[in-house]
Each structure stands twice: as structure tokens, then as C-alpha cells.
């Protein structure tokens, strides 16, 4: 652990400590590059501070700074100030994530070429291919300890998985297993093995699920090239007359304004805060915000097509026991437009505890039917549906200048409308999900609408041409050579898979590039 001076302009500043920022920071530090990681949230200890309680952990870790919403998505009505369910804490959303770690399909890097010109969709091919990313997927899987890779056994199936598996096989699905999970099935990399606690979403109190909090951040601190500053909320990135960035302004734990100089700035605040920061950093030289000559900063917001199916059975299931998402059906993940939509989706096991089930099963609902569904809680099995959604230019993170946060900065507004393709895919997925459970005797299936978004993507997208996107194939701003974006906001399109593995792979790749460019004195 190092301590760098605020005026040390030779450091790389990384904003955010989650899957992107935490991994990038560690990789830079391991290469001997001086790195300061500024994290808006507090640091928790996973053994001492984590609790198996949904609302308590939510209040301790969720990003609850004011946000507003607009558009026709149901969240704007049910949870108007909670468009996303992501974290403000050291480790970022790697505290909350479920651990599912699937690689993209080859065609998902070529969405525009594969799907064609879909009306209303702002599709674009990624500037990289699966082959470009494969070596980095391998590094990411090893770093995170993904099951069914590197000789790591799969996790054992819990009750919720057994119901999914039996139903899926009865309807003819073949690719059904307990997933590729960044959750230790046996002790590895100084982390414990999974003890089937449940509560994966509440932060893993065993430390079995990979999180930068107790993995990459700790490894970085073992070097003398890394400094983590928790409760450091960046509000502005500054630049000089030549247009190069020079540092950042942030508010520290005492609410005092600080200015950290930097050679390079990497933004990894997740898909809502990262574009917000670029937009809030507007200046006379860059009146539309930093890195925004394309006008694409904040645009093309994606959140995956999601939904859940809960099924009630005559006999108990106890779906909450054990690993939350260790179960997947991959048979619908391919692209087959004959289903009535482009792109694919996965079915993954999911359970909520009783408190969250009350809040999210059918938000706002009440009365005898709702209560009757809740009465069946321990007889329920559940799955999450997650698939590729269409980028649309109108789905966007913009500044809401009417509402200011605790630092006087405009809050982000998140606008979202489903694309027809998203709706067609969700309806197909609901139908197939119900069929899986009906095949093993479901008394009833319940289609639950999307939760506050956990997969937030696309608002600083990668593009080959500067006019089409915000960053190049390395996550480097097209406009400003020493400004990078290092999180899921760089996704050109969303793919169908849970995005964390790809975010981590891109961070590994970006670290190599930054080190190379620094060595060549290009940045």
C-alpha cells in the first residue's frame, strides 16, 4: 500500500473499485504502475460487516444517491429513484453480483452484421472479436476462479437447480448445468469454498464468491504501487489547454474538496455514473462533456432483457437454500430469428428472500391474490431470464439539471423504453420458463417484471470510428488519449450473458495496453 501526493501527476487515477476499476487497478499495480483508486463508497469487512439480511445489506451497499427516471419502463413507476440495483462500496457491484461468468458468443461481437438493420435499434459491431478477447477471458476466468474452467469442478446443485434441471430436461433442453460460476467449489486463491449460504446478493460472508473487495484490491495493496481511497466521490475530471486530462476533483470522507493530479484517468463508475461524470465535466473547450465529440456519451443505455418466472409446487422447494444463481439453461442463448426476435437469452436459477420477494414479486401489488402467492413462498422455485436487448439512442443517461446531489452536481436521469425485440424475447422467455416448471407439475407460474437494473451497459460504447462511439477498442477515449473508460459502459452491444466476466477480461486487456503505451511514452 502506497500513499501518493495529491500533486503527483505521474499516477494513474482509477475511478471506481468494482469489476472494471478493481481489476484494472491491481493489474496496473502488478506491472509497477503507480495507481490511485478513488472509490465513492465505504470499505466493509466481509466477515465482520456482512449480514444475511436483505434490507440491511441493501441499505449498507446500494447506490442510493438521488437518481431520476423517465420512459415507459415499469421501473419509472414502481421505483422512480432506483433505476439500478448497483453498489456504492469498495468492491462496487462485485459485492452484489451473483457470480455467473459466461463468455460472449462469437456473433454477439458482430450484432449489426448478424442481426441486420433492426428498426429503432442503434446496432453496431464491436471493434474487437471473440478471438481478440479469448486470451483475456482465460486470464479473467483464472483470476476469478470460474467453475468448469481451469479444472475447477462445478458447484453442487441446490433444490432450486434440481427443479430447473428436471423441468428443462423434460422439455427437451440439453445444456443444463450448475453454471460457470466465480464461486469457489473448493478453496482456491486464499478464498474459502461455498457453504451454500444463499445470500449471494448480500455479499458473500464466506468470501467464496469472487469480489475485488477481498481479492484484487487486497493483492494490489500488497504492492507498493497502489493506494485505495474509499469515500472519495469524484465530481469532475479536469483538462489542460491542449485537451489532455490532468486530474480529478473529488469530495473526501469529511466532505472536503480535493484535487488529485494524474497522468492518466480511467473511469469505472458503472454505466450510469461514468457518463454522468463525463457530462458533468463539461468545459468551455468541451461544452458537451468530455469524450463526447460523437454525442454518444450517455446514449444506447442497455439493461438486458430480463424477467423472472416463479413457480408454485404442491410440495416444498426451499429455493433460498444455497447458491443463488448456480443453475443455467443455455439452449435458448443462440440467435434464431424464427423465434420472433434476434439475439438469445439464458435461464438462470434465482431466489429472493421473503423480504425482497414481498417488494419485487409484483411491485405495488396487494390483496388476497398477492398474499396467496406469498403464502406459497417455501413451495416456490425461481428462475431469472437474461438476454440481449437492443441499444437505442433514445435510451439514455442524461443530466437532470433540476435535481442536485449532495455535492451540488446534477443527478443522472435514466430514460428507457423497451424495444419491440426486447418485448418479443421476454414473452418467449416467460412462456418457455413456465413450460420448464409446468413439466414437473407446477401448480401455478408467476411472471415477475424486471428488477431495478443490475446489468447496466453501453453508455460509453466502443466503436471503430470516432463518430459512432465514445472509446476505441482499448477503452481509450477517441477524443482524449489519456482518458479511458474501464467498465460495462464500453459495451458496444450487450450480448446475452451476465456481463462481469467480459468487463474483467476487458480490464485485463486494457491494463496491457496502458502499460505498453506508457512505456512508449505515447500517453
Amino acid at each position, binding site marked *: 500500500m502506497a500513499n501518493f501526493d495529491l500533486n503527483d501527476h505521474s499516477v494513474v487515477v482509477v475511478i471506481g473499485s468494482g469489476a472494471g476499476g478493481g481489476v484494472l487497478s491491481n493489474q496496473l499495480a502488478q506491472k509497477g504502475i503507480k495507481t490511485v483508486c478513488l472509490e465513492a463508497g465505504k470499505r466493509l469487512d466481509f466477515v465482520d460487516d456482512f449480514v444475511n439480511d436483505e434490507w440491511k445489506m441493501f441499505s449498507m451497499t446500494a447506490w442510493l444517491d438521488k437518481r431520476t427516471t423517465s420512459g415507459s419502463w415499469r421501473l419509472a413507476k414502481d421505483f422512480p429513484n432506483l433505476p439500478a440495483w448497483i453498489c456504492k462500496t469498495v468492491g462496487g457491484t462485485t459485492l452484489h453480483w451473483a457470480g455467473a461468468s459466461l463468455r460472449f458468443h462469437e456473433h454477439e461481437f458482430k450484432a449489426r452484421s448478424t442481426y441486420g438493420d433492426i428498426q429503432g435499434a442503434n446496432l453496431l459491431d464491436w471493434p474487437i472479436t471473440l478471438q481478440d478477447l479469448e486470451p483475456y477471458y482465460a486470464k479473467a476466468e483464472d483470476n476469478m476462479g470460474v467453475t468448469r474452467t481451469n479444472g475447477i469442478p462445478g458447484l453442487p446443485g441446490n433444490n432450486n437447480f434440481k427443479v430447473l434441471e428436471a423441468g428443462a430436461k423434460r422439455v427437451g433442453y440439453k445444456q443444463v448445468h450448475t453454471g460457470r460460476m466465480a464461486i469457489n467449489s473448493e478453496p482456491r486463491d486464499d478464498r474459502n469454498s461455498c457453504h451454500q449460504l444463499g445470500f449471494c446478493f448480500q455479499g458473500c460472508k464466506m468470501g467464496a464468491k469472487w469480489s475485488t473487495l477481498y481479492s484484487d484490491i487486497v493483492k494490489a495493496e500488497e504492492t507498493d504501487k497502489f493506494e485505495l481511497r474509499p469515500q472519495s466521490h469524484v465530481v469532475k475530471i479536469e483538462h489542460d489547454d491542449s485537451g489532455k486530462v490532468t486530474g480529478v476533483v473529488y469530495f473526501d470522507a469529511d466532505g472536503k474538496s480535493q484535487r488529485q493530479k494524474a497522468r492518466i484517468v480511467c473511469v469505472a463508475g458503472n454505466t450510469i455514473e461514468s457518463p454522468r461524470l463525463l457530462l458533468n465535466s463539461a468545459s468551455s473547450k468541451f461544452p458537451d462533456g468530455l469524450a463526447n465529440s460523437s454525442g454518444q456519451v450517455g446514449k444506447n443505455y442497455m439493461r438486458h432483457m430480463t424477467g423472472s418466472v416463479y413457480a408454485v409446487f404442491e410440495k416444498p422447494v426451499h429455493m433460498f*437454500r444455497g447458491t443463488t444463481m448456480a443453475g443455467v439453461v443455455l439452449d435458448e442463448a443462440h440467435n434464431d430469428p424464427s423465434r420472433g426476435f434476434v439475439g438469445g437469452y439464458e435461464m438462470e436459477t434465482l431466489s429472493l428472500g421473503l423480504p425482497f420477494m414481498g417488494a419485487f414479486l409484483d411491485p405495488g401489488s396487494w390483496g388476497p391474490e398477492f398474499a396467496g402467492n406469498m403464502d406459497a413462498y417455501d413451495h416456490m422455485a425461481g428462475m431469472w431470464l437474461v438476454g440481449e436487448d437492443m441499444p437505442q439512442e433514445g435510451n439514455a443517461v442524461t443530466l437532470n439539471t433540476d435535481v442536485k446531489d449532495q455535492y451540488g452536481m446534477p443527478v443522472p436521469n435514466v430514460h428507457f423504453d423497451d424495444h419491440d425485440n426486447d418485448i418479443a424475447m421476454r414473452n418467449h422467455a416467460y412462456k418457455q420458463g413456465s413450460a420448464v416448471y409446468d413439466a414437473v407439475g407446477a401448480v401455478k407460474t408467476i411472471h415477475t417484471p424486471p428488477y431495478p437494473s443490475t446489468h447496466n451497459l453501453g453508455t460509453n460504447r466502443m466503436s471503430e470510428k470516432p463518430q459512432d462511439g465514445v472509446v476505441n477498442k482499448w477503452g481509450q477515449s477517441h477524443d482524449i488519449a489519456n482518458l479511458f473508460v474501464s467498465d460495462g459502459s464500453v459495451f458496444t452491444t450487450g450480448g446475452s450473458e451476465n456481463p462481469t466476466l467480459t468487463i474483467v477480461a476487458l480490464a485485463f486487456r486494457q491494463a496491457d495496453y496502458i502499460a505498453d503505451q506508457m512505456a512508449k511514452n505515447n500517453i
Partner: protein
Amino acid sequence: MTTTTISRRCFVKASAMTATAAFSLSLIGRLGGQAWAMTVKAIDATTADTLLAMCRRVYPHDRLEDVFYAACVEGLDAKAADSADAKKQLTDGAAMLNKAGSKAFAELGADEQLAVLKGIETTPFFQTVRGNMVTALYGNSEVWPKFGYQGPSYPYGGYLERGFNDIAWLPKESR
């Protein structure tokens, strides 16, 4: 009240808050043969009784005794104690309910109570009560066992040795 009764009440309501002031008002009920009390300090007895009946109708669970709904009313009362606006909203809302049916809301049958609530479900008053309840009721750890939810598992070593994969009724063969 006996000491047993008081400790039971505090235990049951632990996660939903309780603040007993000298001038607090207790509404006495029975739970499992023992007395329990709903303690409110800001709202009046009629309002508290009306809200209690409303809470049961919003999330009606036969398996839950009144004491769990009373804990929700206590949570609302705490907001009323902190805010004159909240107190007015709850008091006016309860009065509205009591005028809406053929007699006082708490004395109506379940079907008529439901019809009255359907008629006001878009009001801020209803949304306040329902919104508070969804966390106060389902987030109350004393309610969890009634639904077969086992709560924190870490203190017991997780479910690895405690039935994470004990389901036995699934069909053995796929067709």
C-alpha cells in the same frame, strides 16, 4: 401485563421499532392465550384500530396473528410522531375509511373492507401504508418462520449440511 407479555411484545416487534412514552396508548389483544398490546403515541385509538384492520386487508395472511400487523401500525405511528404531515395523512386517511362503508371500517366484513380499499388504492395515504407495510411485514424476522423462510444461514454454517439439496419429490427420469 406480566413481564412475559412485555418481553414477548418487544421480541416480536424488535425489527419494526417500538417507542413507549409515558403517555402512550395501548390497545390490548390476545396472542396464543397471552395478552399483547399495540403501543402508539402519536395517532389516536380509532386511527390505530382502523389502520390495524386495513393492514390485515392489504396483505391478508390467515397464518399471521394480529400482533404482526400491529407492528406495522407501530411503524406508521413512529412516522406520525416525527412528522405532523404524516400524522395528518394517517388520521385523515383512517377517517376517510370509516366514512366509506356502511359502518366503521374495522367492523366491516372482509369483502367490504377490500372493496373500500380498492376504491382508494391510488391515494397517497394508501400508498404510504402499503409501502411501509411491505418492508415492515415481510422484513420482520419474526414473520419469516411463518412462511418457511429460514433467515440468516451463516450462523449455522450455511445449508451445506442442512438441506440445500434435500428435495425428494421430483420425478426421477426425464421422458
